[in-house]
């Protein structure tokens, strides 16, 4: 471009700027990475929805940027005994239609949650432990559970309270149209176009004080390049999940601010231990099945963990937006053990361990992974394969869209699987239970244990922890369970994803561990 042209454009941009800023002072557009499938807060338990709903609706207990519980529509709560919880509700809170918030709305919400027709993923899991509800007065409510349930406050943090008045006869469509989308949150429903955009307006009477924006437009920009282009060209002021490829450039550019935070999502490897002999896609180097399932040998699992250069992945593949992992959650979360450190890259040690386990010449595996689910998932799989050639394990890589991948992974059609797990509750016990407890669907143990790892010692520690009401004791038990599992390399943790947000200059976002993008966290300034 010629100099004059550049100047002309710059002049044009400058002259247009002040007007634009004034007109849109309290308006902001945000680029989101995934579709919002409904404006019904109880229809689809899905991260992008849950994040969006928090603008309009509120739970009894909220989570702060580090997922620590804080008062929401409840001001305080306590366990009266092992089976009884008492919640004090916030007074002087009004719904968007002006009606007051009372215990009746909570009762109505709890009744509605398990009964949303056609819900592809309901919130019933969170309300099921409650077997009885008693309204003491309009601002005091008591919940009864059948068995001791320590996680009740954590569960209720996922349940958004809807208005009884507006919701009594409403179906999901009425929430989507906005008719029933009446909450207590800082923003009001304005427009919802599936797969395209959500528009919200400020709720000026919000009990939590004034919010920075009059109007927010969330645009669904699923393609990462499109999202970045929208930010660069000024069509949106903030985007979530900045592609790692653009981080270096954006962080150097003074026109943009980049914030990040380690998230609650771990990327890990499940090794299929369900078979006596070779699991699928695991053979010797000539392609013949192995006599024994190598993944059942803790030494092999350890060697495969030592063979991965986590620092290189975090540094080169993830552009430093990943933190090498030692367990299922970063160690500032509840139930994590500070004693666990990421396994060091040690190809020589790995080779020695493999030889000890009876595989001096290694073996051959296929690494399976998704290619549209986690950040750089297919690249991580490829890098691991590269590292394994250094320890004598031949690795092929097959990545596929999640539509195909997860069905096959659940059917245990793979041997070595790249997977991810986000702990929405922010406590490690539930993750250990889902991913590593001995598989038993009926008991709700190991439901996502695609490696079929089984260790009675771990199961015992977990089941004791589940029924312990004392927070301190419980945390110690979970930490102990985590140490048992990780020292046995029950799975191979790779890294924790770091969530990123980029804003235009003049905006500041408070990064969160739960990967949520909340307009309340976006402030003008700097």
């Amino acid at each position, binding site marked *: 471009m010629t100099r004059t042209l550049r100047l002309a454009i710059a002049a044009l941009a400058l002259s247009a700027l002040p007007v634009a800023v004034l007109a849109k002072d309290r308006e902001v557009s945000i680029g989101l990475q995934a579709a919002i499938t409904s404006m019904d807060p109880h229809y689809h338990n899905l991260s992008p929805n849950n994040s969006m709903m928090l603008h309009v609706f509120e739970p009894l207990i909220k989570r702060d940027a580090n997922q620590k519980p804080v008062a929401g529509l409840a001001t305080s709560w306590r366990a009266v005994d092992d089976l009884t919880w008492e919640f004090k509700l916030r007074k002087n809170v009004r719904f968007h239609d002006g009606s007051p918030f009372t215990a009746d709305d909570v009762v109505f919400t709890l009744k509605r949650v398990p009964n949303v027709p056609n819900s592809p993923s309901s919130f019933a899991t969170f309300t099921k432990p409650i077997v009885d509800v008693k309204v003491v007065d309009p601002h005091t409510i008591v919940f009864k559970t059948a068995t001791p349930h320590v996680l009740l406050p954590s569960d209720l943090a996922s349940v958004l309270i809807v208005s009884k008045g507006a919701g009594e006869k409403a179906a999901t469509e009425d929430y989507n149209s906005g008719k029933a989308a009446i909450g207590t949150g800082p923003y009001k429903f304005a427009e919802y176009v599936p797969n395209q955009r959500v528009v919200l307006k400020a709720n000026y009477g919000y009990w939590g004080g004034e919010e920075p924006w009059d109007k927010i437009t969330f645009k669904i920009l699923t393609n*990462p*390049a499109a999202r*970045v*282009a929208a930010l*660069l060209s000024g069509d949106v002021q903030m985007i979530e999940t900045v*592609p790692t*490829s*653009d981080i*270096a*450039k954006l962080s150097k550019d003074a026109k943009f601010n980049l914030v990040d935070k380690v998230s609650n999502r771990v990327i890990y490897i499940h090794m299929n231990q369900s078979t006596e002999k070779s699991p699928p896609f695991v053979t010797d180097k000539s392609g013949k099945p192995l006599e024994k399932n190598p993944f059942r040998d803790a030494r092999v699992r350890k060697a495969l963990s030592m063979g991965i*250069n986590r620092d*290189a*992945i975090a540094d*080169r*593949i993830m552009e430093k937006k990943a933190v090498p992992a030692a367990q299922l959650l970063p160690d500032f979360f509840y139930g994590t053990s500070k004693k666990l450190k990421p396994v060091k890259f040690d190809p020589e040690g790995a080779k020695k361990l493999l030889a000890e386990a009876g595989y001096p010449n290694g073996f051959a595996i296929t690494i399976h992974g998704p*290619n*549209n689910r986690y950040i750089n998932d*297919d*690249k991580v*799989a*490829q*890098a691991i*394969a*590269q*590292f394994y*050639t*250094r320890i004598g394990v031949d*690795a*092929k*890589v*097959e*990545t*596929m*869209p999640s*539509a*195909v991948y997860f*069905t*096959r992974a659940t059917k245990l059609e793979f041997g070595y699987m790249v997977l991810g797990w986000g702990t929405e509750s922010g406590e490690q016990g539930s993750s250990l239970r889902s991913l590593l407890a001995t598989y038993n669907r009926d008991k709700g143990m190991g439901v996502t244990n695609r490696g079929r790892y089984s260790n009675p010692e771990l199961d015992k520690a977990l089941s004791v922890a589940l029924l312990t009401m004392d927070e301190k004791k419980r945390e110690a038990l979970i930490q102990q369970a985590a140490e048992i599992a990780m020292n046995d390399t029950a799975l191979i943790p790779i890294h924790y994803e770091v969530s990123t947000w980029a804003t235009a200059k003049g905006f500041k976002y408070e990064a969160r561990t739960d990967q949520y993008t909340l307009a309340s966290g976006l402030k003008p300034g700097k």
Partner: protein
Amino acid sequence: MTEPARVEGPWVRFWRDFSESRLALVGLALLALVVAIAILAPVISPQNPYDLAQLDVMDSKLAPGEASGTGKTYWLGTDDQGRDMLSGIFYGLRISLGVGVASTIFALAIGLVLGLVAAYFGGWVDTLVMRIVDIQLSFPAILIALVLLAVLGQGVDKIVVALVTVQWAYYARTVRSSALVERQKEYIEAARVLALGQARVVFRHLLPNCLPPLIVVATVQVAHAIALEATLSFLGLGLPITEPSLGLLISNGFQYLLSGKYWISFYPGIALLVTIMAINLVADQLRDVLNPRLRK
């Protein structure tokens, strides 16, 4: 520069006609080069880009000409796995060209036969073929590729199957349209009056006269097949990522476009452009030369 006295053989004549266009000769030279690179890729590449043991992620995203930690120089830079772009392009060319040409040939063969048969026989045969074509045209390539991926797994052969499935209907309809017109012409009538075998009428008389528009579509479609493979890769349904084609290299590098690491998709893009340009320059001239009606 032909010898005036000698009787020209068909090949000599063909070559003389072909070499009339200098542009076509340039195209031919380029095409020869591209094919040579594709065939000789394992010999001339500095690195085997499909052997993971030769890659080092610590060398990833090096700019062209930048020296790596181990002192190696990658003239066209490296991609995000530390793969030498030059070697990647050589090998990728091999796969892309193979996939593009193979799928076009198969699709063309199927489409040609069905299209001719439909036009020639008409009636219920035409109806049946054309309704299958309707279905096929409406079936998105991604869905076909996804089903094949789920059922058969990943691989070059599966991609070819997917591309053929997607493309044959296109040819069938194009052939049929020309054949419908040709069928009514006198020479077909004459051939029929002579009681020549139907197969003979279809393939010896009908086919050659339907070819010109088909060749246009086919040469464009080789390019389209390669681009479609790239698009499938872009959607995560293409070849195994450890064995990238040109298209996969481009779609991998695509995400670095906005960040200034242009070489990861720019150079494979150039390679693709040159390849397709060469194919089309040659094909354009071939079409003119082979077309009986265009001979002066």
